[in-house]
């Protein structure tokens, strides 16, 4: 499945505290309010993230989802990772190692996380074909 809509990669500032988060929110307003936005936040430079920053990220994903778009995070710095983990926020986002990985993921049908098979089930490619012809 190919997507013709543009994917916008946005670098987040080094500090995502109340003031910076508010400025960043204003900055990305035009991107978020577009039709079906596809956004990637490159968080490699984030050194300081607090609750205001986390709140802003959640607000972003809420607004993007409302418009049938998606917001993904990429290259999350260890400092930001720790905060996302302790606030349980990491589970709301698809997180990729690099912005290009995140960008590529928009043109795939399933996100990478959903492709992973639980436990020891063989991957879909190696499974024998269902010959019964009955659709699930």
């Amino acid at each position, binding site marked *: 499945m190919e997507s013709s809509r543009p994917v916008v990669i946005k670098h987040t500032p080094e500090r995502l505290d109340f003031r910076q988060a508010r400025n960043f929110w204003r900055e990305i307003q035009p991107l978020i309010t577009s039709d079906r936005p596809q956004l990637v936040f490159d968080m490699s430079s984030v050194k300081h993230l607090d*609750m205001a920053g986390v709140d802003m990220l959640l607000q972003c994903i809420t607004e993007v989802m409302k418009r049938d778009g998606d917001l993904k995070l990429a290259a999350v710095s*260890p400092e930001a990772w720790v*905060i996302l983990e*302790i*606030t349980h926020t990491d589970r709301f986002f698809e997180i990729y190692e690099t912005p290009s990985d995140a960008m590529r993921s928009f043109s795939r049908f399933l996100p990478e996380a959903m492709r992973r098979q639980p436990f020891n089930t063989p991957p879909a490619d190696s499974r024998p074909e269902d010959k019964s012809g009955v659709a699930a």
Partner: protein
Amino acid sequence: MDVRAILLLGPSADPTAPPAPEGVPLALLDVLGRPLLTRVADQLKAFGVSQLAAVADVGPSATPFVPPALRQNLTWLPAPGAALWRTAQELFSKFAHNGADLVLALRLSAYYELDYERLIQFHLDRNARVTAATDGAGAILGAFVISASRRNDAAFLLRHSLLKSRTPLVLYPFSGYSRRLTALADLRQLAVDAFCGRSQITPQGEAIKPGVWVAPGARIHRGARVLSPAFIGRYARVRAGALITRCAALEHHTEVGRGTVVEDATVLPYTKLGNALDVAHAVVGFGKVASLRRGVEVEISDSKLVGSVLSAPLRAWQQMLSLLAYLPLEFARGLLGRSAPSETPSFPLAVSSPARALSATDSLPAATDRAVSNFR
């Protein structure tokens, strides 16, 4: 035989190690209810050391971390910066002058469960000037036995921060439990090893059920869950809905917010965790989170996530001030015409009650009729 000991608390011998948090040496921080310094001092007392002194490179911020009971058992000598080694030299001379036969110089940049009797016998058997204990890998642990008559050797050794010796050291191989203390993550490993019975460290509290120790003064809400192995320190507070599990250790005067999960983590003294957090595989304290999984220490300035608990006198002062300020503040609010924030409506009540447009004075049919007549 008169054996005396000098305990040295200073910066780590490893120059690449991160600095001590807020200038408090790791040996002064609690591990399952007691600081390592107290544990080592108790071991030495049990062995029969006649006099103990601790020389510490600490600032005033470390004062609350020194237990008052500890000061009664040993001589506490704060010596910031370069004064640490000079003070240690002077102390050695004093001990030697006062009739000590042997002096133990223990640098607490590692925790080790040495058998001091064997170490001293080893030193005497070899007729050594200075004996150093080494770990399984042959690295020097930081525990030295120095013959009190060898003042020059001792002075040289202490002048060089226990890193160089004037004469070849006699090495005592130690195969027991030891762990270097370079970062906050090492405290976590010490706690896990204690829970697993790998070391002699025992939790300082009452076992309320198998594997769960609770120290006096701790308050656990009945809506909170504590699963073994876990340790709740003195005056710690666990709020409703919190979950403490998998070798979690809450040291004294800590507070865990509502719905917060503490899993395989150590919460250092005077630390407050916010509500609904997930603290796993980490050491939290001094406004920092040291993530063991990511190997990174992150400073957190947001008190909603990680804050600090005030000590009891400060808390009392704060409460008294807020009580005194209550009436004047209310009076000022009244003068400025600020009303109290309106009560948040409850969700079930809002759902069950009719909307304002459909209230009794303006029923739906009447409102519709009026709208239709206006339209005509």
